């Protein structure tokens, strides 16, 4: 078994988790289910197909469907977010399709000018799709204004599938990253630092989660650029990102439903009324920032190793600084929003048992995979070996 099977398996499991959660915490009407199901199907199928035109087109369709899913919320803010998403995604799709057309089957383009054009198109296209700094504008809006599971679908499934498409390019056409490493590295570092700082500046939790995605995707991109163990780290990190973000958005979604308003840093003491959601948020946060024994650490140590080989101590110092900012950000969110004694007013007294159960399973998965990541990374060993050979 290899990553080609692990990835769709994980996507399918997460899509199932999102579906079960959404039965308990309503995300939308029938149209929402239809679109969400379609997106999940497209993402799973695309990742099963591997690097191909069909897969690329399926992912592009999934992205456009995600725009409609955001729009479905029906609020003016959601409509604005969907518009912003659309304006970003359409040029992004055009850029990536053109770039991939030039790259073709992976061999080097005949003329240097075409190579440069392809790289420009791919950098801009993927930066727009993934919401990397300075092309991030749609991501926080979508995360904040869409339903929580819509945001989770966009970030954990669509974005990660897009990222895996980019990581796949590292194996097919390594010259894109090796010859133009400074550009990719710069965008990765700016995303990491910018995302971490902007996450710290947020008071609304879903926006904060969106910016922390930008940080994490910057780190994963750095792994792709570094290659070798970094690429393996990026794969593992991407899986962890998907899992953690469903946990985090899920926990915030339950809280928002029960208090009847968005969860911000001014919300206090949620853990008292929602201990399960609180635990899920804490585990998701620690998993995302790579604190052992979360699964994130299995990706992080590889990414750090790749960074040490690629950029030496200065790059490690950057990564540590960003990780510290992430920690400050999540620790503040946990302690201001979830912990503490302040009374919290609930508008919905109905506990979301099924959603709580889903989050519990995902949280247990996050810890178990962290305790023994070899279960997953060992399965992908042929790919690991292949990646290491590069």
């Amino acid at each position, binding site marked *: 078994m290899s990553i080609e099977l692990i990835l769709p398996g994980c996507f399918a499991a997460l899509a199932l988790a999102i579906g079960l959660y959404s039965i308990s915490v309503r995300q939308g009407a029938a149209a929402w289910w239809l679109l969400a199901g379609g997106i999940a199907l497209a993402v799973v199928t695309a990742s099963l197909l591997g690097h191909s035109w069909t897969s690329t087109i399926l992912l592009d369709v999934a992205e456009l469907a995600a725009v409609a899913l955001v729009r479905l919320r029906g609020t003016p803010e959601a409509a604005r977010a969907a518009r912003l998403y659309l304006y970003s995604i359409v040029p992004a799709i055009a850029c990536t399709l053109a770039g991939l057309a030039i790259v073709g089957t992976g061999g080097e383009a005949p003329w240097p000018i075409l190579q440069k054009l392809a790289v420009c198109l791919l950098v801009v296209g993927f930066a727009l799709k993934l919401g990397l700094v300075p092309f991030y504008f749609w991501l926080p809006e979508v995360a904040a204004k869409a339903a929580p599971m819509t945001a989770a679908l966009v970030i954990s499934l669509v974005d990660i599938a897009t990222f895996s498409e980019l990581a796949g390019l590292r194996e097919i056409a390594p010259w894109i990253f090796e010859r133009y490493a400074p*550009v990719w590295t710069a965008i990765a570092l700016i995303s990491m630092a910018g995302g971490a700082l902007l996450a710290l500046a947020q008071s609304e939790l879903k926006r904060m989660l969106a910016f922390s995605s930008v940080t994490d995707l910057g780190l994963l991109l750095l792994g792709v650029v570094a290659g070798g163990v970094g690429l393996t780290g990026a794969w593992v990190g991407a899986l962890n990102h998907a899992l953690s973000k469903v946990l985090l958005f899920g926990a915030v979604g339950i809280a928002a439903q029960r208090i009847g308003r968005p969860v911000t840093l001014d919300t206090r003491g949620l853990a008292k009324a929602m201990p399960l959601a609180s635990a899920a948020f804490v585990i998701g946060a620690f998993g995302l920032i790579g604190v052992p024994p979360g699964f994130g650490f299995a990706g992080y140590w590889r990414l750090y190793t790749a960074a040490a080989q690629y950029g030496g101590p200065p790059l490690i110092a950057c990564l540590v600084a960003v990780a510290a900012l992430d920690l400050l950000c999540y620790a503040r969110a*946990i302690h201001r929003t979830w912990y*503490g004694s302040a009374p919290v007013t609930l508008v919905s007294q109905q506990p979301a048992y099924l959603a709580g159960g889903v989050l519990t399973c995902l949280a247990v998965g996050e810890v178990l995979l962290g305790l023994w990541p070899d279960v997953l*990374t060992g399965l992908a*060993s042929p790919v690991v070996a292949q990646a290491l050979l590069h």
Partner: protein
Amino acid sequence: MHPIFLPTALLFAGAALEIVLARILTRATKGWLAFAITLAALLSVAAVLPDVRDGEALSATLLDWDAGVPLAYHVDGLSVLFMLMGTGIGAAILLYAVRYMEHEKEGTTRFYALMLVFIGGLVMLVCSANLLMMYFAWELIGLCSYFLVSFWYRQQAAADGARKVLIITHVAGYGLLAAVILLYARTGAMLWTDPAVAAGLSTGLVLLMLVAAMGKSVMYPLHTWIPEAMNAPTPVSALLHSACYVKAGVFLIARMYSIGPWHAAAGPLLLVVGCVTMFVGIVFALKQTDLKRLLAFSTVSQLGYIVTGLALGTGLGVAAGLYYIASHALFKGTLFMCAGAVQHATGTRDLRLLGGLYSRMPVTTAIWITAAAAIVGVPLTNGFVAKWLIFDAALDAHQAVVVLIGWAISMLTAFCFLKATVSGFFGSPAPELAAQKVREVPVFMLLGMGMLAVLCVLFGIAPQLLLEPVIAPAVRSLGFAWDVQMSWLGVATGSGTVGVTAGAVVVLTAALLGAAAYRLIRIPTGKAVAVFAGGDPLPVGDTLGASDFAEMAEAAFKPVYSLDPDPLYLRIWAGIRDFARAAGRFAAGRLERHAPAVVVACTAGLCAGVWLL
């Protein structure tokens, strides 16, 4: 499975069992189960002891934790010392916790599972041959500490304390991660037993590791999390924040002697850090009126002694440091449990509201006095032997200044614990307390703390019982020769130790003469006697209380209190927060408002970058 994995397996399986059986077991039964598992782990550790006695080590690999990362153990004398400490003291504290935690309405499963994971994580940390697994265990115990401090997460103080614990120890821990990763990138080796690791060790990497060790082991200026951690249940404070968790850092410092030559590069710096920590810790302890916070700051000071011993870089210094580690775990664990017993019985740990507990809690008082005597370094206790070894080692390393500092701080320690003892256990109870029905704590709590107090005296009278079978293999495992010859009462019997032995005899004689004189000349009167109170006599009827001592200490050491690094940390945090807010305002005002223009400009910039390459 190799037997060296048995303690870890037992403890982790025990934690899982606690969770699985949570709905079936009563609160007390969960405690008994945790105690039994820790006892079984202790026995399995004891079984390993004979195999490492002469400096040998046991090595085995269980499985691949991750692709290419083996979970490999290398158990030597140093590992066994820490394993004994974790499981032994852990067992005593869990016995104490059975009754202490019985009244908690919720969270006992979480509590016992985390305690077992913590002990298992400590065992894993000290046994790991793989540096990455060592970091994994390092953070695992860190996370246990965080969750245990936030046990009462609905209380703001506990939540705030936990946050501080997390931030300081985890951020400092990145030093260890960075060092491990850079070492791996440089040498391709992850096992510290691999000679390539020693060859790749540089001063920078050593300093990174020391930063991590300083954070965990509350070295100045990274010590400020420990008083906030006192909002945890007392068994947590006793096990984590006195006996074991704070020892993880000193373990790393000791282990670095096995990894490679580091002392020449960072030893002197560490010696300074140790001495400063000793001083700052005790000065801050003097000021406290909360019993647990006082103990927390005294832990800072005591860890300073330990680090000073280890930083001397000699066999004798390392032996002294390691003996101090075990001794501190015993007496500080006892003191914390006594503080918990006081709180359990009276509902407060504020020294201003306590007093006269001797008549109501005589056994707790006796245990407290024994442990307090040990921490002060009174002869016949392990604390005396530990301090004596440190002073001896410092003299041997021609560091007379260290002896002077250590001696002065011993006096301040005595002053600090005299204050705590008198305010808490003697004199008249505060009016609030006088009305309360205060009773001695349950027998199992007494047993838990009593066992450790007995060991304090036992290892004070016969230190060779600990030195020969446990400390000597640990010292040998670090590559030092064992040249400590110590007999009953800590009397050094090796060649060239005449001066030290004579000094010990003088101290002991003086103590005995003092006691005899006190007995002989004491006038049995019920009247209050005049005491020197640092100035004018006190008005008739007034006595010195905890707050008086605290105020005197505050006045005397005022300049030292400005060394508190917390205001600096606050300024750093405020700086980061303000910078982030400014970035947020810039992004919202300039970038997001003109998104299309920004995208076009950045695209042009990127294309230019690509074209130039």
